[in-house]
């Protein structure tokens, strides 16, 4: 579906519908990828930069192996259980029913809180004249007025449209700071030691897993069922590419910052702004800040709309969450961000990776069920 394509498969209303679904799913993946990137950026600056120190990019690279293994395992499992759906979506709902949707909704709610805290802290740092308690409600107001009246469709389209420009903006503005970095920051190669790297990897596995797994949940199943195999692979590739991109960002952060440059007391905003604070590029600063605010705003709105959709059980394209539910989710996130403190930040950081546990348990149960089915089928054969 290139915009510059000169030939098309569209020769009937059904093929037209199919292409529209494909575009919708592609845009939805881009929204998810943007959310993922925003959370990685935040969690990286909050957790990895000072706790794991130098080799945080190694932690990032290390999680590619378990992520790929998990994906292959679920693919294998789903083929055993049901042939027409090649993803995890068919399996998990069967195990947990409606409870799974609530679990994902809660996970997305913590994402939304995390993102709102991050963006309001960033804005608090760059807008010292504005009262701190006004920032989070203002962001929530922008998100609410954008999402009300069935606008989640619009958010998905917008994410599809802004995906590459946003990535390009952030990359370019960050790259402008590269001349200020030093390769010496990569040494000692193992930073605070292998144990720190492993700790970082486990933390990232938990955090990323709990962000990625909901992407494969029932909301997308209805859409994916209408797509060709190609579409599924592309969706997963987008996630993989996003993780690689994050590894690059992580390496860039390490290249720019001395491992011990940040104190524990440094706010999220200070940490996020660090790459451009050390840069001498003037337009780079504006571009970076604007792109980052937009990225966090999109990610926050995405988390809110998906959270409300999962709470209401309307996680398909045809229906979106009612406005009142979106409003409730937003209203819940605002006080958390207004009363944001170091303690809440630490609590969130500690809480985020554990969200993967219910998914892993359900995956285990599903694996057992699939193995049982497979043995039964072999006996019958």
């Amino acid at each position, binding site marked *: *579906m290139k*915009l*510059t*394509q*000169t*030939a*098309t498969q*569209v*020769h*009937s*209303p059904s*093929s*037209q519908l199919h*292409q*529209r679904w494909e*575009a*919708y799913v*592609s*845009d939805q993946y881009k929204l998810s990828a943007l959310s993922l990137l925003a959370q990685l950026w935040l969690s990286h600056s909050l957790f990895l930069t000072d706790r794991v120190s130098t080799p945080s990019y190694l932690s990032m690279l290390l999680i590619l192996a378990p992520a790929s293994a998990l994906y292959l395992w679920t693919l294998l499992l789903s083929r055993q259980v049901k042939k027409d759906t090649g993803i995890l979506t068919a399996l998990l709902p069967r195990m947990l029913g409606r409870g799974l949707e609530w679990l994902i909704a809660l996970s997305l709610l913590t994402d939304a809180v995390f993102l709102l805290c991050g963006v309001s802290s960033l*804005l608090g740092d*760059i*807008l010292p*004249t*504005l009262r701190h308690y006004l*920032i989070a409600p*203002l*962001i929530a107001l*922008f998100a609410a*007025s*954008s*999402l009300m009246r*069935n*606008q989640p*469709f*619009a*958010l*998905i*389209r*917008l994410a*599809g*449209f*802004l995906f590459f420009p946003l990535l390009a903006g952030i990359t370019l503005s960050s790259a402008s700071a590269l001349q200020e970095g030093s390769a010496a920051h990569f040494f000692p190669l193992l930073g605070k030691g292998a144990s720190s790297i492993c700790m970082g990897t486990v933390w990232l596995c938990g955090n990323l897993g709990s962000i990625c797994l909901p992407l494969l949940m029932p909301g997308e199943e209805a859409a994916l069922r209408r797509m060709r195999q190609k579409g599924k692979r592309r969706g997963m590739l987008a996630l993989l590419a996003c993780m690689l991109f994050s590894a690059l960002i992580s390496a860039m952060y390490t290249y720019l910052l001395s491992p011990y440059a940040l104190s524990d007391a440094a706010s999220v905003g200070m940490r996020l702004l660090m790459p451009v604070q050390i840069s001498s590029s*003037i*337009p780079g*600063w*504006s571009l970076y*800040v*604007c792109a980052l*605010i*937009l990225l966090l*705003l*999109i990610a926050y*709105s995405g988390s809110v709309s998906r959270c409300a959709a999962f709470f209401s059980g309307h996680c398909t394209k045809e229906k979106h969450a009612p406005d009142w539910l979106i409003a409730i989710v937003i209203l819940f996130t605002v006080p958390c961000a207004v009363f944001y403190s170091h303690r809440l930040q630490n609590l969130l950081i500690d809480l985020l990776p554990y969200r993967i546990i219910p998914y892993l348990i359900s995956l285990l149960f599903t694996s057992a069920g699939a193995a049982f089915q497979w043995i039964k089928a072999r006996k019958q054969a």
Partner: protein
Amino acid sequence: MADTQWQPQPGGSLTGTYQQKCSQLKQACHTDLSSDIKERTFTLLGGNATLLYVDGMADAAQVTKYILFPCQTAPAPREGCDLYDHLVCSVLPLGVVQRTYQTDSALSALFGGDALMVVDGVDGVMILDVKGYASRGISTPSDETVIVGPHEGFTETLRNNLTLLRRLMRSPALIAEPISVGSKIPKQLFLLYLHDIAPDESVQELKRRIHGCNVDYVFSMGALEQLLEDQPFALLPQAVYTERPDRACSFLLEGQVVILMENAPYAMAMPAGLPHLLHAPDDSAMRWQYGSFLRLLRMFGLILALLLPALYVALTTFHPQGLPVTLMTSILETQSKVPLTLFPSMLIMLFVFCLINEAGTRVPGALGSGLSIVGGLILGQAAITANLFSPLVIIVVALSGLGSYAAPSYSLTLSIRLAQFFLLILSGLFGFLGLIGGLFLLLMRTSALTSLGYPANAPLMPKRPANPDDMLRFPIWRQRLRGTLSNPYHMDRTRGKMRAWDHRRKP
């Protein structure tokens, strides 16, 4: 009471005697009060006949030459021949002669320039096409000027406009369906589309909406647009206007439906969205390199118009770290002499700019240049000399104004100006938070926009298979699709290579 008297009775029939029909028509059109409605009674083949026409709308010379003279010298009909058939076949040398039994259709024809003839012995009323009202000739479009391309524009005459389109598209596939809107005073429209290329859903939806317009009178195409659009509170228009027949043809070829209206010197195409508003008529007439360059320039201008004032205020007021020190020093130096702070200065200057622009539009042509000199040069210079405004503010406003003029559509220019104020106020209050939040809000509203149920900004948001003719204009021979608005069965413009003679490359 008077209101119900002049209003044609819907379904009122003209089936009585000759005298009854005459008095019914005369009463309905108030011949005793309206002096321009002419009534002429004469003898036709021994019986009576009455002719009614509106002076100025019908051509008096044609009335005499093709109706009165032939009727008064008509030969007697053959034995057994119906009088109506005899008049149509042997007496009246006119292209269009119709018969009606309905009062409203008779009155509609009368006030549309036709003549009505009531004949003793003929059922109903005869409608004779002798239109001959004064109209403006075809001239160069005033708002959509081009360097490359034809120079003919639509006029206020519906028939001329239809002819202009027919001349460009000499094909039976071009359907022109007459339809009227307005309950008290119906206004004639033509719904034009290409058979098989425009999706049936678009045509039917537009007809449904037009039939569903419950108004007494539609005074302009803009009023009709407001009655038909999907989201009346949206900032961006959901229909595109053109006063050029060649552009209307390009809309038809894309599968859009074009509406022509009586007394409207332009055509309106629906569904439409942002990509249509960004295109200028001569983009396609130029070579693709030039067309693409101009399109990029235009988009840069619009982004400048939208963001520059807000960005300037946000940076100087809230985020000075985003500006070079030398520039910031210069801004502070100039600003220190000005009594107002930057945000109200910018707001006032933008308002003044809009005022000069509006005054320049409304003022008679000869005074236009004088007003520009007074408004732009003298006022600007005086404001700087009197230290009322900083020169940088005037430069920013001038640049953003220049950018907004790059928009090919006047509706788009106005929506950019409104959005400019919205973003400026937000960024003046909350810095980058306001700017990005406002931009996010605008982008969300834009991406949710629909026109006749179609996503208005496709193929950009959401992505759809389309011609490579959106942000950039790729070569004509790569534009092989009609676009997302056309019938999916006929989406391909052509099969095989467009440059079939060229064996050197594979386009």
